[in-house]
């Protein structure tokens, strides 16, 4: 009887492992889960198993790296966007000179 109860409790917390790792548990559930793990160190192997599964999952997802030409082209386009769209309207002649100077040194 005691063994059955333990299994039910185990299974209840097993279902919460992913939620815990995903950070989607409520703060109460999270505290309850952490308290359970502290008192049941053997449960940590199951958490580790799920963590390994998630690490493996990442390998099934692309992590595309930019080629050098793409990096250069994207960088220059981003720079252009930032310098064009974040332009402050010049209020006077000094502002005009300041803007031109900033544009010139950023080339």
């Amino acid at each position: 009887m005691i063994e059955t109860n333990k299994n039910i409790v185990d299974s209840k917390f097993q279902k919460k492992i992913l939620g815990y790792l995903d950070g989607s548990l409520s703060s109460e559930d999270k505290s309850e889960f952490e308290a359970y793990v502290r008192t049941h160190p053997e449960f940590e192997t199951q958490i580790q198993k799920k963590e390994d599964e998630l690490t493996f999952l990442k390998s099934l997802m692309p992590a595309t790296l930019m080629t050098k030409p793409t990096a250069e082209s994207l960088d220059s386009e981003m720079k252009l966007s930032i310098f064009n769209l974040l332009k402050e309207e010049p209020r006077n002649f000094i502002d005009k000179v300041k803007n031109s100077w900033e544009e010139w040194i950023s080339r």
Partner: protein
Amino acid sequence: MKRKDFYQLLHPLTDKLYRMATTLIPDDLQAEQLVIDSLNAYLIKEKNKILAGRELDSLSKKDIQLQRRFYFKGILRYMSEIGVRRSSQLADQMKLAGPSNFKTFYGLGPKVRLVMSLRYDFQFTVEEIEDITTMPHYEVIEKLHNGRFLLLNDFNQGVQL
């Protein structure tokens, strides 16, 4: 904040923005365009706030990191919206081009790919993903669950064959 400060702040994020874009659209040119469009949309909307921000020189290292993350999330908000829509429109063309690797991943819906990538590649919390994608909590959880299940299930079936 000056323009050059903002550029300096954003420069280290270029790689990440591009990676996120290719998650939604697996095509070099389209992904590049998505990054630029998202950045432009963000700059137009947030111009005044950015310019009113503190100078980079006056920020501590920690503050710089926080600011960088703040702007990253801001641009990702636009990328999610534009990218999901564009990905659906380009779905047929993408099937033709078809990336040979990660077929299962690109077979998932754009919203599932978006959420999976934000969580497992960029390590955002569920709350942050809700904020970036404007999806309700239950939808984020559902998409994570479905994505995980479909990817692992497909891999396990492949191993069995």
